[in-house]
């Protein structure tokens, strides 16, 4: 009896590895709601006087392009002011800004902090204090120095502020590095799933997880209700602002037709650094709002079970994968037949979820899909795709393996086959270790090899490994550092 209970608990834990993907399927199923719940009915033609706030530290390479693009926005020039808060830059930022201020007096403003390096939130607060002191500002656009707005994007965001219940609006950030690497293409696809798809659903259920740091438009009333300051206590100031806005009873809107292009890291080391900061921020947010989860409340939807499901499907993904893998290995020793069936069920769910979410995501953004469809297919990695193939079409996989065996003359035998199966069970967790190794290879200068390995191991597992590293960093109480992501200015609007 006790053995049976143990076996079924292990089966539940093993198949539970598919829970995050089931949450992903559910999230994608809800996207259709956005056809109705998109806030377009409450939009109006308001063009609020908008102050654009750009935090900048050594951004001379990108600022000229960014400011020029902002000045070409399809938005009345007399309703737009650009404030660049220079966080004690040591490059040519002051000279670039001096030139732009001379060209556009009164519209482009350079605010310099002599004492810098305290992080983005402090830099934002420096500009925010000055901008709020002038009643001219009706809306504030917080953006990054390296993003490029499509001409109609601000207008499309601003139309939502006609509804006084709206506190903030965010846009669809797309990867736009010119001549980008394979990693940029992976990120481009990831942004379809994480933004075009996930944020549509979040908007539909009335709870947005995060305003994109590069595109957040706030009403003045919202900023004042937040105390006129951006939170400086975590690495996730964007998410804190998003949560506080909604907790104060204001809506946050995702506007998928406002497109903003961003340059993302093109190498694994840079990406790891950026994502570790984001993931640590998410862990901090999870802890900070621990009394919020799964507790529905009036005035906001952050406590809904659906939102919590989506939040924890991402933040707990590495732990779920490790648990699933260990349960499969334990089953392998206790009841091999049951372990095979649990493994098969896990990967069939994964396969169906993968097909649905990938197909839908690519359809959501056809122009990006044409560029990144290979990275979309290889997102889980070649190894996981082979496991999916084995789970769905075992006979096909077996005949392929036999053909390969005939070709190479290598026979696995029964023991070899068992070990192969055990390796597949362990892969559910070990893929994160393999992803971590790609980062180490990249750091050691073997960039080409690391790139090939990302396709083999998968971009998804790489992101999971970063999340796991974030837990480790938080558990160790590692120093909170604002590691700036190096940008080159090679970002452009793609048509």
């Amino acid at each position: 009896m006790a053995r049976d209970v143990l076996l079924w608990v292990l089966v539940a834990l093993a198949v539970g590895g598919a829970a995050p993907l089931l949450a992903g399927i559910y999230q994608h199923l809800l996207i259709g709601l956005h056809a109705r719940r998109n806030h377009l009915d409450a939009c109006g033609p308001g063009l609020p006087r908008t102050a654009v706030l750009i935090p900048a530290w050594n951004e001379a390479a990108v600022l000229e392009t960014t400011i020029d693009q902002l000045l070409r926005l399809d938005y009345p020039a007399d309703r737009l002011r650009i404030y660049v808060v220079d966080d004690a830059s040591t490059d040519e930022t002051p000279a670039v800004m001096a030139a732009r201020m001379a060209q556009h007096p009164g519209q482009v403003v350079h605010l310099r902090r002599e004492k810098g390096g305290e992080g983005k939130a402090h830099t934002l607060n420096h500009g925010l204090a000055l901008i709020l002191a002038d009643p001219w500002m009706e809306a504030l656009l917080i953006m990054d120095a390296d993003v490029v707005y499509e001409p109609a994007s601000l207008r499309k965001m601003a139309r939502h502020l006609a509804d006084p219940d709206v506190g903030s609006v965010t846009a669809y950030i797309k990867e736009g590095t010119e001549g980008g690497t394979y990693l940029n293409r992976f990120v481009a696809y990831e942004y379809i799933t994480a933004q075009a798809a996930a944020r549509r659903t979040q908007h539909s259920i009335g709870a947005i997880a995060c305003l994109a740091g590069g595109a957040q438009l706030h009403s003045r009333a919202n900023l004042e209700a937040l105390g006129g300051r951006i939170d400086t206590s975590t690495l996730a100031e964007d998410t804190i602002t998003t949560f506080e806005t909604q907790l104060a009873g204001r809506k946050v809107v995702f506007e998928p037709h406002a497109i903003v292009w961003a340059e993302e890291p093109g190498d694994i080391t840079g990406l790891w650094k950026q994502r570790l900061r984001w993931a640590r921020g998410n862990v901090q947010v999870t802890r900070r709002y621990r009394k919020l989860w799964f507790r529905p409340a009036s005035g906001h939807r952050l406590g809904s079970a659906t939102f919590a499901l989506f939040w924890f499907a991402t933040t707990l993904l590495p732990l779920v994968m490790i648990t699933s893998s260990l349960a499969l290995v334990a089953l392998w020793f206790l009841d091999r037949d049951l372990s095979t069936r649990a493994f098969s069920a896990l990967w069939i769910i994964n396969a169906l979820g993968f097909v649905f979410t990938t197909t839908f995501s690519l359809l959501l953004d056809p122009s990006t899909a044409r560029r990144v469809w290979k990275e979309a297919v290889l997102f889980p990695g070649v190894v996981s795709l082979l496991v999916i193939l084995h789970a769905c079409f075992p006979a096909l996989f077996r005949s392929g393996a036999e053909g390969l065996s005939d070709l190479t003359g290598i026979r696995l035998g029964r023991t070899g086959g068992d070990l192969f199966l055990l390796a597949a069970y362990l892969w559910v967790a070990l893929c994160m270790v393999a992803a971590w190794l790609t980062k180490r290879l990249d750091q050691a200068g073997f960039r080409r090899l690391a790139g090939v390995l990302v396709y083999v191991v998968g971009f998804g597992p790489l992101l999971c490994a970063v999340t796991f590293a974030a837990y480790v960093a938080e558990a160790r109480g590692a120093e909170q550092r604002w590691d700036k992501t190096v940008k080159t200015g090679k970002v452009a609007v793609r048509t």
Partner: protein
Amino acid sequence: MTSPPDPPVPGYPQRRVLDLTAPYEPPPVAVPVAVPDVASDVASDVASGSPAASGALPVRSAVTDEDRRRTEDDIAADRRAERRLVAWELLALLAVVAIVLARQLWLA
């Protein structure tokens, strides 16, 4: 580098709804720049180029009929695009059904 939470800016009301279509009315007196904890830093910024300090206040403008027409056109187009989502969703579900059928046929 953890910092203590910042204090709220005094003097700001907790909720205020603005009429976004109204023309800008400049304040009757010079704009005071009250900046907590970064006062000296910002004071030099103001002196060196903020619109409030330089007197380069903007030309007034309000929402025009053209703005209204364009907003309505944009909203109509975006609404149509959002309705297409349902078709894409059904197409993606069909892909799943195709995989399931293929597997069943293969196993049969």
